[in-house]
């Protein structure tokens, strides 16, 4: 069985499990739903271990590897929110969102030849990427909740604000991880390149994203501006997508320093 075939099978199983979890949880079938969620996560984790074994380094250095890591962030983040904020009703949202990064992998060729360049051989490498992925996964869930809240508000739902409140609690967990990701990158850049900040596109867009989420939190706390918070949050997520995807994919926005991210 070829490596690519094995990866494709594992991906498909993980995606099917996450989808089954999402549907089961949506229909109130909590036990089977969480069972599928955990099973999908385990397969996703095996895929991470497989990538690690094949390339011989922590597999966080290219988009293919990073999407596998991103898929793993949702279940642990949900468990923290369920325990801490009692947001158990978000399970289906987290399960469905887990599918998104893995779907992208079906359209990518596994980069098994990836090797860790000397610049990436730093203790900051894994924490910088992992904390950003945790932050991004939570921001994605918060974005979906914002959209759901806007849809429910149009349908005159009894309590559309519960989505915005839940999104707020999700982002309160996301922001410290995003902050650590941003600032650990600066500390690492100083050790590697002699400067904390080069204003390259990746760095600038990540700072734009961080500032927009900071503005979101300030809107939430300012009387009269709270109603604009959800709009700021949506803009922040669009900036996040630009940081994570567009900067890598569009040549004009391209970053030389972050060319391996």
């Amino acid at each position, binding site marked *: 069985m070829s490596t690519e075939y094995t990866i494709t099978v594992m991906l498909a199983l993980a995606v099917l499990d996450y989808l089954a979890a999402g549907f089961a949880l949506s229909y109130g079938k909590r036990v089977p739903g969480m069972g599928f969620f955990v099973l999908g996560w385990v397969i996703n984790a095996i895929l991470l271990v497989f990538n690690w074994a094949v390339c011989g380094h922590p597999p966080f250095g290219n988009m293919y590897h990073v999407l596998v890591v991103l898929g793993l962030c949702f279940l642990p983040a949900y468990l923290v929110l369920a325990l801490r904020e009692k947001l158990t009703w978000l399970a289906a949202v987290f399960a469905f969102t887990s599918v998104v990064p893995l779907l992208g992998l079906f359209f990518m060729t596994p980069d098994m030849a990836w090797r860790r360049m000397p610049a990436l*051989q730093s203790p900051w490498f894994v924490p910088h990427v992992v904390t950003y992925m945790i932050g991004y996964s939570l921001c994605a869930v918060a974005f979906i909740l914002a959209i759901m809240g806007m849809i429910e508000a149009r349908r005159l739902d009894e309590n559309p604000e519960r989505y915005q409140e839940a999104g707020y609690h999700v982002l309160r967990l996301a922001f410290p991880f995003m902050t650590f990701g941003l600032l650990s990158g600066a500390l690492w850049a100083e050790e590697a390149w002699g400067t904390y900040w080069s204003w390259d596109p990746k760095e600038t867009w990540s700072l734009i994203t961080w*500032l927009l989420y900071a*503005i979101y939190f300030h809107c939430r706390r300012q009387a009269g501006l709270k109603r604009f918070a959800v709009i700021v949050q949506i803009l922040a997520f669009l900036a996040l997508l630009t940081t994570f995807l567009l900067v890598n994919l569009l040549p004009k926005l391209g970053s030389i320093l972050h060319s391996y991210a």
Partner: protein
Amino acid sequence: MMFAMFILAALVLFMLAGTLLFAGRDPAVVFHSPLFIILAGLLFVSLVWACARRRSTGRQAAFILTHGAIVLILLGAALGFWFGEKSDLVVPVKPDHIIRNVPGKNLASIPLGFGLGVPAFRVEYYDKKRMMPSHFEADLRIEDGNISEIRVLRVNHPVSYRGWRIYLMSWENDPTAGEVLTPTGVVLTARRDPGRGLVIAGIWMLMIGVTLTCLWKGAADEH
């Protein structure tokens, strides 16, 4: 808070303009411009004012830590910007070659205050044909009066000496050597940054402050 949010929004718009309208150009054109520095200065003033207005209670500690951290970062960055030195240079890999000055801005020469040389360089490859290095390092000779020592310089592990930090960036091969890869020079960055300590302290304070503000329920200052 409205003024602070106005400044944050202005900074975001400025950065958007900088990345979209000036893509491909030197970022310094935008982010070292007087207007951007003025915006950063206004942010500094706003943050100092916000921290000064707070009482020193436990609930406000996280706020002061978070916002005061950004003050420190801005202060350290300003010191580095106006009083720091940075130089990119190529040093030949030769046992007896010592430099005492590094190139600065506008062809100026910056004295190091000590001698610097690279007597040896080592590189290992994952794939030599595709020039994929797995590891490279240089021996850095430092001569300062009677002191002569060798330190190993690696990527992500700069060498610090008398206020200077030396970073290993890359190397150059002999272009006439054909397929035999023979390193002839190392590409270094030398930096002296009086604000470095403040920036690092501010970064760690900001990480802790944001974590406390967001995750410690007692620190939430809900209106």
